[in-house]
C-alpha cells in the first residue's frame, strides 16, 4: 500500500534533495496540524490566538517547502497532493511533532524542544547553496524566532511557577525527552546534502540546541531526565500510533471529496 515512488529509490542528488525537503516540510505540516487542534480550546483567549498564529506560520512554511519538493520531484504532483494524499509511511516528520497535545504544558514543551532545534537549523540553512531553500529558511527564521521566544517564556513561567505547573511541565519533559535525539537523525541523505553545501551540519545544530534547552531549563528549574532511552523512526516513515489518527483527520476532506477545492 505504500507509494514507493515517494521514497528515495536511488541516491541521486534529486531524490536526496526531495527527501530532505519533505522531512522539513512534514515537520512543519504535522506540528501545524497538531497545534491547530487547539483552535477554540486554548486555556485563555490570547494563547488560543498565539497557538493558531504559530500553526499558520508552520502551515505556510510547509506550503513553501512542499511546493518546492513537488518542483524538485518533477512528476507533476502539487504541494497539496504531497501534503494530503500520501500514506503514513511516506511522511517523514520526526516523532516529536506528532505527539499528542496533552495539556498546555505538554504542548508548550513539545513546541519549545522543536523551536530550539528549528531556530539554529534555519539560521544555518539560510547559507545553503540551494537558492530556494536559502530563501525559505531566511523567511521562516524570522517567524521561528518569535515561536521560540513564546514557548521558552512559557516553559520558564510554568516550570518556575506553582507546584502544580512545575509538576506538569516536568512530567511533559520526562515524557517528550525521548523524542529529542531524533531531531538530529543523520543518515546518508543528510551527509550527501551537507557535502554538497545544500544541507546543514546537524552535529553543530545539536550543540546549539543543547545550549538553549539547558539555559531555559535552568531558569525554569526543570531537570533533564537521566533515563536517556531514545526513540526514532519518523525520518524513515515509521511513526507512533498517534500518526494514523492525525492523518485520518487531516486527510478527511481530500479522501472524501477527491480534488475538492475552496
Amino acid at each position, binding site marked *: 500500500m505504500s507509494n514507493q515512488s515517494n521514497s528515495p529509490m536511488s541516491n541521486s542528488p534529486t531524490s536526496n534533495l526531495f527527501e530532505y525537503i519533505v522531512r522539513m516540510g512534514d515537520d512543519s505540516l504535522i506540528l501545524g496540524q497538531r497545534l491547530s487542534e487547539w483552535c477554540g480550546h486554548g486555556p485563555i483567549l490570547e494563547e488560543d490566538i*498565539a497557538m493558531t498564529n504559530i500553526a499558520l506560520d508552520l502551515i505556510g512554511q510547509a506550503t*513553501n517547502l512542499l511546493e518546492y519538493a513537488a518542483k524538485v520531484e518533477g512528476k507533476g504532483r502539487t504541494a497539496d497532493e504531497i501534503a494530503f494524499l500520501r500514506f503514513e509511511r511516506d511522511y517523514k516528520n520526526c516523532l516529536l511533532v506528532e505527539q499528542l497535545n496533552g495539556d498546555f504544558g505538554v504542548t508548550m514543551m513539545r513546541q519549545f524542544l522543536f523551536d530550539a532545534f528549528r531556530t539554529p537549523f534555519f539560521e544555518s540553512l539560510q547559507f545553503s547553496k540551494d537558492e530556494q531553500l536559502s*530563501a525559505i529558511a531566511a*523567511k*521562516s527564521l524570522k517567524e521561528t524566532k518569535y515561536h521560540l*521566544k513564546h514557548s*521558552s517564556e512559557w516553559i520558564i513561567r510554568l516550570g518556575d511557577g506553582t507546584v502544580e505547573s512545575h509538576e506538569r511541565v516536568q512530567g511533559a519533559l520526562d515524557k517528550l525527552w525521548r523524542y529529542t535525539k531524533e531531531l538530529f537523525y543523520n543518515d546518508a541523505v543528510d551527509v550527501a546534502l551537507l557535502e554538497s553545501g545544500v544541507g546543514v551540519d546537524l552535529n553543530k545544530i545539536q550543540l546549539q540546541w543543547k545550549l*538553549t534547552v539547558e539555559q531555559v531549563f535552568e531558569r525554569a528549574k526543570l531537570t533533564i531526565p537521566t533515563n536517556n532511552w531514545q526513540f526514532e523512526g519518523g525520518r524513515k516513515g515509521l511513526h507512533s500510533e498517534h500518526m494514523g489518527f492525525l492523518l485520518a483527520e487531516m486527510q478527511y476532506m481530500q479522501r472524501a471529496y477527491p480534488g475538492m477545492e475552496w
Partner: protein
Amino acid sequence: MVNEQEIWQLLEGVFDPEIPVLSVVDLGVIRKIEVGEDKVNITITPTYSGCPAMQIIEQQIIEKLKESNIQHAEVELVLSPAWTTDWITEKGKKALLEFGIAPPENEPDKSVLFAEPVKVGCPQCGSKNTRLVSQFGSTACKAHYQCKECLEPFDYFKCLK
C-alpha cells in the same frame, strides 16, 4: 500600453484586506513591476509565510489592473529577499497610527531569547506606559498590547527584521 509609474499609482488603490488603510505599495510587498509589450508582470513578497491575505492581494491586483483595461497581468510570489517591516513606507506608518494600530518601532531585533518586550506608544493617547499582552495578535503580523494610562487594548504591528 501604460507605463510602470502608472501601475504603481494604480496599486496605491489596492489595500491589504486585513488592514484596509494600508495599500500594498505602502505595505512594501510590491517588489518589482515590469511592463512588457502586451503583458504586465508584478512581483510580490509575503509578509509572513502563512499570510492568508496574499492570495486575496494577488486577485485584487489583477482585478484593479483589469479596471484600467490591462487584461494581461501576472503576479508572481517570491520569498527572497524576505520582507521586513522597514519596507512599510512613512505614509503607511502614519495611516496605521491613525487607524489605531501602533506602527513598528524602529528597534533592533527583539525576537531573541530573554529580551524585554519593546516599549510601544499607545495609538489612542500616545502614552508609552503600555504592556505587551501577547506576542501574537489578531493577525500574524501584529502583537497585542494594552495602554496602562487610557486602558485601551490595541494592536502593534510587530517589527520584523
